[in-house]
């Protein structure tokens, strides 16, 4: 049980991990929209003028991650956010040059991304633990659960007394008759 799961209740299906995934989904979506709509605002703040196309591309990535995190299977999107955080950190690191007058802002941005990355890792791990079927999950043997009193082979055709209703017959309206049916 993860730390987040300890705060979940069996009387509500939406666990803390799910709520966190949802929150990150909305955050990702919002950040993505900002990066797509106002890339210059960000590049100017970070002293990265000329990188607007890159910021827009990252915005599109954030939106895809956001949509994924809000879907019924958020796990891949949450891990993609972790990878995205690494990419963001690497990109910001290139702006930590002595000639960048906005170096201070870049450091703050890196700290925010680092904190977000920690939350992303925690959320991705919690969601994986909560929802993903482990690869090595022991398989229960249901091979004795036929539901039949005898072997399935012995039960083949046991409902031979059943007559298919007229509206569900294969031969309806095309002149085909059961009696003349030939195996193809």
């Amino acid at each position, binding site marked *: 049980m993860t730390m987040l799961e300890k705060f979940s209740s069996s009387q509500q299906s939406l666990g803390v991990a799910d709520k966190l995934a949802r929150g990150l989904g909305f955050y990702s979506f919002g950040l993505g929209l900002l990066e797509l709509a106002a890339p210059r605002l960000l590049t100017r703040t970070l002293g990265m003028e000329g990188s607007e196309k890159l910021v827009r591309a990252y915005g599109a990535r954030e939106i895809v991650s956001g949509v994924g995190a809000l879907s019924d299977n958020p796990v891949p999107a949450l891990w993609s956010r972790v990878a995205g955080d690494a990419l963001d950190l690497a990109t910001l690191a290139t702006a930590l040059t002595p000639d960048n007058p906005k170096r201070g802002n870049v450091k703050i941005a890196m700290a925010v991304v680092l904190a977000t990355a920690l939350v992303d890792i925690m959320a991705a791990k919690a969601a994986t633990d909560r929802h993903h079927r482990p690869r090595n999950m022991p398989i229960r043997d249901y091979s004795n659960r036929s*539901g039949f009193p005898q072997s399935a082979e012995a039960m083949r055709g046991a409902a031979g007394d059943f007559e298919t209703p007229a509206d569900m017959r294969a031969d309806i309206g095309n002149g085909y008759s059961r009696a003349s049916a030939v195996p193809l």
Partner: protein
Amino acid sequence: MKALCWHGKNDIRYDTVPDPKIEHPRDAIIKTTSCAICGSDLHLYDHFIPGMEHGDIMGHEFMGEVVEVGSENKALKVGDRIVVPFTITCGECEQCKRGNFSVCERSNRRKDLGDKVFGHSTAGLFGYSHLTGGYAGGQAEYVRVPFADSTHVKVPSTLTDEQVLFLGDIFPTGWQAAVQCDIQPTDTVAVWGAGPVGQFCVRSAVLLGAKQVVMIDNVPERLLMAEAGGAITINFDKESVVERLNELTRGKGPEKCIDAVGLESHATRSLDAVYDRVKQATMMESDRPHVLREMIYVCRPAGILSIPGVYGGLVDKIPMGALMNKGLTVRTGQTHVKRWTDDLLRRIDEGQIDPSFVITHTVSLDQGPEMYKTFRDKLDNCIKVILKP
């Protein structure tokens, strides 16, 4: 009373809600003794079916003891033990008289919504959105059964809840799916989806005398259960469905194909499944129809496609060319439960089949929300969950 209520996507809660009351003289109130989580409840859980509202009580597979009856209800009395079909039926309209109970013309009290979305409304259903009447569902301590003089199956005390509960949905659903195929002794019947309905499709096809029944899925424990019921299994993660089906049918394809999956198909190694995932996540498509496409492709010309799997809205890239040119017949619909229950109850009573084989988890109602997750994510080898209020 206590009930499992819908509060949004993936959000089911064990809530306290008002007790149900008789609202019409044909009603009855039952005290639920057993109920189940159905695969189609997961479409509501994942919010792929429109028309749900906060606080709606979930569940359409349930049974119990009659504790109150309306003044005009002469068919039931207090103390009767009944299974409740998930399709609510008046028993008097033109469709009910024809046996088309799932399209009862009178039981959907939100006919306006149904007409708008589907062209013409279908029957009222328990706990399955306001498109089908917005009726409170059966995952609750008590349930109001509308048109109860028609909407019930009396069950004898000699059979356990576990043996008869599934008469309300998944057993007749699997049975109707097989009956719609009009199975001949020479037929190969391919079934997609080894969930509870798929398991009953396999047993029904075997009982109805299919030459061979093939189950397609990728969940090992579910394939084991299908094998136990007489199916040849194909794990689509490990082998090609098309090649294996052709091998089994001398290259001609199965005559009859059953889609027991519906709108949330998971095909992990297929391009069209990825395409569907993206379109569904971006709300450009409501349903993921990978199984439909595959069935149309593999089915033998002049064959039958039977679709008990639930679809909710719009699908994309359906190979109509193959469907039309191969002359395939498509039969689908919610289950006309009452049409089959007398016969199926007799088969259970005579010991031809014991439906309890499919139950893997039995828990109390308050553990229901967690079990939605367990069932949806196929954790703990879960195939069928029974809840005891």
